[in-house]
């Protein structure tokens, strides 16, 4: 298939496993075993059961009537915000914790930006009784204090990372260092479709439940499993990968990824990796990166801590390059307005990340009969402080 990885873990020219030798044994074991494990009937049964009874799936596909009216088109929201822990992140951590158990690992590490993946990881560790260490940039620890407390209550150790810009990239560096230092008992639950092969493919498979359900729900509600377009926000790109997954080969469905423009793609304060970046190697993957001419990674900026990342999953780099998906960007300002619009038209407060996808509705030409699916990846509970401060309620 055109958009699948090849045997070396590449989507076209992007991906691979650019790992230091110290990570070889762990990555090699994963590479050899992940498909056999996650495709086994035993694993599927356990995974599907947990998705249903623990995560609360299927997540509803909701026809947003008043928002549709506003834009003069049909808008459906895939409600990943209604999952346990409030985002799509749990789909992946449930899958990976089961995998870690099959691999005999007893200690889990993770990186987190906004804290959503950290909470989702701490949650499944509590569920399975595994030791959990979450790396989080020191700045994000401050910005997302309530998620830090949640993780601690769930029994996880949260390690603030003081290097670099003290955000997601630095937390990822530190998690990789931990894995190098603990090569035998530890599994690293990467939170997005980034990192070395097989993580991008594995995480995309766990998140693909989003588009699997979408097909069934759209058929029920619209009479066709194919929408006109699917819109999702992209940082590392896991919710978008999940929302696009089962439609990648259905070329009639338009796929739109929305990056965080921050203060604007023409400024230096942006996180729109595909729009301003170039090919390079970071976090063990050949992908698109924000970097200077010397190959040093530049610091990203976005109001949303979950999209504040200078790289992107290799799948998206490939979809961008081949033109299969279109990528646009929304500024902080546009995102906040889009969040307010959804809140007041539908009574749903979205996560800042997901509001990037909503902001795209102002940038796309839509016909009245178009079926637009927005992947509403997370709930706005964690962002209330930002919203209240900005809107002055």
């Amino acid at each position, binding site marked *: 298939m055109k958009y699948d990885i090849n045997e070396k873990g590449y989507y076209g020219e992007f991906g691979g496993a650019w790992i230091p*030798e110290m990570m070889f044994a762990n990555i090699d074991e994963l590479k050899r075993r992940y498909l056999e494990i996650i495709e086994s009937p035993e694993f599927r049964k356990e995974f599907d059961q947990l998705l249903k009874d623990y995560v609360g799936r299927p997540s509803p596909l909701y026809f947003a009537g008043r928002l549709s009216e506003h834009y003069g088109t049909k808008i459906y929201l895939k409600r990943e915000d209604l999952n346990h822990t409030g985002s799509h992140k749990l789909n992946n951590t449930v899958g990976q914790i089961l995998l870690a158990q099959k691999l005999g690992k007893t200690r889990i590490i993770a990186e987190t930006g906004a804290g959503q993946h950290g909470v989702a990881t701490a949650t499944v560790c509590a569920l399975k009784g595994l030791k959990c260490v979450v790396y989080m940039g020191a700045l994000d620890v401050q910005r997302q204090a309530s998620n830090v407390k949640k993780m601690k209550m769930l029994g996880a150790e949260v390690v603030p990372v003081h*290097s670099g810009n003290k955000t997601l990239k630095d937390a990822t560096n530190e998690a990789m260092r931990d894995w190098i230092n603990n090569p035998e008992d530890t599994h690293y639950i990467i939170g997005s479709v980034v990192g070395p092969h097989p993580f991008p493919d594995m995480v995309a498979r766990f998140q693909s439940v989003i588009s699997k359900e979408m097909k069934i729900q759209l058929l029920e509600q619209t009479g066709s499993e194919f929408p006109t377009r699917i819109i999702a926000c992209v940082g590392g790109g896991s919710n978008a990968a999940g929302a696009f997954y089962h439609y990648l080969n259905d070329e009639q469905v338009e796929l739109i990824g929305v990056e965080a423009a921050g203060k604007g793609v023409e400024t230096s304060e942006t996180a729109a990796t595909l729009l301003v970046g170039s090919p390079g190697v970071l976090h063990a993957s050949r992908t698109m990166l924000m970097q200077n001419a010397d190959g040093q990674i530049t610091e990203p900026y976005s109001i949303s801590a979950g999209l504040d990342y200078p790289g992107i999953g290799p799948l998206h780099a490939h979809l961008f390059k081949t033109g299969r998906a279109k990528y646009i960007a929304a500024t902080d300002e546009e995102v906040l307005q889009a969040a307010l619009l959804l809140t007041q038209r539908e009574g749903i407060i979205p996560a800042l990340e997901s509001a990037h996808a909503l902001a795209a509705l102002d940038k796309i030409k839509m016909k009245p009969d178009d079926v637009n699916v927005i992947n509403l990846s997370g709930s706005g509970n964690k962002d209330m402080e930002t919203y209240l401060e900005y809107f002055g309620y």
Partner: protein
Amino acid sequence: MKNRINQLFETKKENILSVYFTAGFPKLNDTIEIIQELEKNGVDLIEIGIPFSDPTADGPTIQHSSETALKNGMSLHLLFDQLKNIRQSVKIPLILMGYFNPIMQFGVEEFCKKCKETGIDGAILPDLPLEEFEVQYKEHFTKNNMHNILLITPQTPEARIRQIDGASGGFIYMVSSASTTGAGKKVEDFHQDYFERIQQMNLRNPRLIGFGISDHATFANACKYAGGAIIGSAFVKELQKCTEIQKCITGFVQRVRKSD
């Protein structure tokens, strides 16, 4: 001309001391003086670190030196500029060590050519895996008489060690224990069985042991199992607190070489 790394290992079989430092640290223009002083004090081989913004295989010491070096304005272009005339004064083998992305942006072919011009004998690029090297970049290295030094760790399976040995030139960088650099685990604590296992494999390449080598005791112990050892973080720490480079380097190398 024969590669200087091979010359070294042909003439010297034991107690080889290789020292790593980050280019541009502590000051931007310390590079040449550090190299010259290390050679003067009897260091056998030097690894010049190219700083990178995201050194995922390094501990806090080299993270810090890299960050400072970048703030000081170090870049690969500038480093080659500084090293332009290095072979007029320095004879020992020189290796560039760094992460792949800056080299990818520089251009791997261009990098190898520039190394040859400058008199660099090899590179250690921890996040350039063997598989990618062989397929895409090996020819550029070979053409320019450059060795790509590969790493092995206690977890590297035997078949892969053989493969790495087959693909290596110069020497094999034996990571003493599973860790990032400067993790502070002592060589005494390392799996002696790992050292012995590798020793008994009769690899075609000589080996140097690195990671966790910081003083005479750890150096001497590592030398029992390999041609020599590599010191990185401990030397960078020394430079960090140093006011007079010449004195610091003399003192440091003397302390490592002989017990007190």
